[in-house]
């Protein structure tokens, strides 16, 4: 019987001398919306990249359902940072979203009618249906983010990793993302989001991980997201929760 969906054990990552992540032990239950929060350079993106096997850690391992990443790849979706790709790439919105189905169809085979339908549905879900034939070079930042979100939805994964999806997006996109997040949770999915805006953590998420190279605290937002813990994460000079709800 596996109690936790994701288990990170003893994860240490170092690029140069200083470790970026130090001895992270994290146990994530199924069906939560979790924010990873911490100051710049705290290793937030590195943590999810290491969990996704995109970066090789010095030590430690990650288990999904008690099994290795490789065997569970099929159930994992990923939304990279928007800036990580070249948006001048000659392709359309539909095409990018279809990429999310590639994992299911495997090498060489092409996406068919069924995949196209799934992609169109996902595009609709993020409110981009009028843009499905649009070339991606003509999208605004928020629209780009929604395309990435649709692509992840199409993957039909059980666990989603999102790297700063709220970074520099308009209000409409932010709402769309929140809507999707809540929907995903309703469907029993688990979503892990690298997040920057402390003001919205309580509103958007039900779990939070406070990270600053070391794991400061993680767990239920109401218990963990306290002034005291935030001070530990950001240093004492930051008064983060001036706007306590």
């Amino acid at each position: 019987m596996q109690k936790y969906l994701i288990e990170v054990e003893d994860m240490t990552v170092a690029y140069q001398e200083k470790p970026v992540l130090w001895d992270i032990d994290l146990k994530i239950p199924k069906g939560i919306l979790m924010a990873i929060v911490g100051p710049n350079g705290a290793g937030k993106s590195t943590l999810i990249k290491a969990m996704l096997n995109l970066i090789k850690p010095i030590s430690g391992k990650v288990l999904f359902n008690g099994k290795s990443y490789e065997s569970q790849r099929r159930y994992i979706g990923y939304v990279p940072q928007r800036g990580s790709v070249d948006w001048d790439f000659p392709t359309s919105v539909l095409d990018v979203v279809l990429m999310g189905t590639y994992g299911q169809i495997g090498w060489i085979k092409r996406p068919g009618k069924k995949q196209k339908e799934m992609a169109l549905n996902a595009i609709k879900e993020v409110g981009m249906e009028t843009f499905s034939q649009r070339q991606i070079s003509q999208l605004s930042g928020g629209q780009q983010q929604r395309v990435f979100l649709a692509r992840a939805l199409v993957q039909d994964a059980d666990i989603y990793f999102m790297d700063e999806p709220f970074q520099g997006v308009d209000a409409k996109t932010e709402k769309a993302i929140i809507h999707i997040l809540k929907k995903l949770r309703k469907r029993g999915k688990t979503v892990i989001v690298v997040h920057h805006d402390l003001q919205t953590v309580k509103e958007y998420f039900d779990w939070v991980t406070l990270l600053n190279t070391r794991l400061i605290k993680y767990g239920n937002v109401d218990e963990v997201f306290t002034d005291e813990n935030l001070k530990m994460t950001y240093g004492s000079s930051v008064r983060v929760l001036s706007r306590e709800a």
Partner: protein
Amino acid sequence: MSIESLLRDYTLQIVALGSAVLGAISGILGSFAVLRKQSLLGDAVSHSALPGIAFVFLITGIKNTEMLLLGALASGLLGTFLIVIINRYSRIKFDSALGLILSFFFGLGLVLITYIQKLPNANQAGLEDFIFGQASTLLKRDVYIMIVLGCVILLMVVLFWKEFKLYSFDMQYGVSIGFSAKKINIILSSITVIAIIIGLQSVGVILMSALLISPGVAARQWTDKLSVMVILAAVFGIISGVIGTVISSLVSNMPTGPVIVVVISLIVIFSLLFASKRGILWQYIKRRRNSRHINESRLLINLYELALNHEDIYHPHETKMIEPTSTDKTIKNIEKTLLILRQQGYIKQDYFGTWAITDIGIQRAKRIEKYGGDCL
């Protein structure tokens, strides 16, 4: 030829002097190109000089070095200009623009040269020398031209030192404090093109880029200071120019340009491997030391956490107990790390071979827990 007679050889002195001057100025200007991530611009510029050379010859009908270099300069600058324009006003990436202009201009040069070859009474012999370079044909006059131009370039670099530094490092900031990026770019690009054109005669179109890039890359490994880097690059350029020239005259059938490139490449490889701080060897040692430190810290923490489960914090544990959560993969490695920790006094081993944490071990473990891995 013996070394002694070699040193007295007048032609060799001329050629070596030319190569040294070339090495120095390309090293200096190449440093900026490397820092601006425009290393391959030199490759494109040297290729785009060809049609200029051919065109001037076609019009004047004589092989006058100054005129040919002027033609090369004009078309080299035109090529640079087009690359910048294409890159700025379209979504075409810098490297594509380079490759495009490079092949376009070189192709045009070929067309002109083959056209000239078909003309009657044209004394076109030697035009192709610009493609591959022919250092051994350098005349005293050519070297004088090189020295004069070299001095001009040097003077410009000294005059505009501050601006070039700003430009290579952070031009956005430079603009914000009132410098014109465009003007600095034009000055720097122009003198870089001049340097490249000077090199064409000795090492040719294809290898010129190496002379520009390699000294800068090698110098970069030894220092973080721009002034030191530029001087070092000049020195590397001179060394490879002179050694290359000497080798190619000592050994029969050794083309000068390629030998210079091989020498400077060896300097690059040496610098990459052995430079202090940045070098590969240095980094390897540092990483080894680093990961050993991390292993030590983690083992200590593991032991500490195990100990916390007991009322007696000095409760000893068997190696086997420590293993499951540790970084080191084999028992043998763990024992090695444990021995190091014991040597440092953080833990002790009792008669039965079990391990217990000491007082200073507890202190260090607490410090690690507090500050993460930074307190190494």
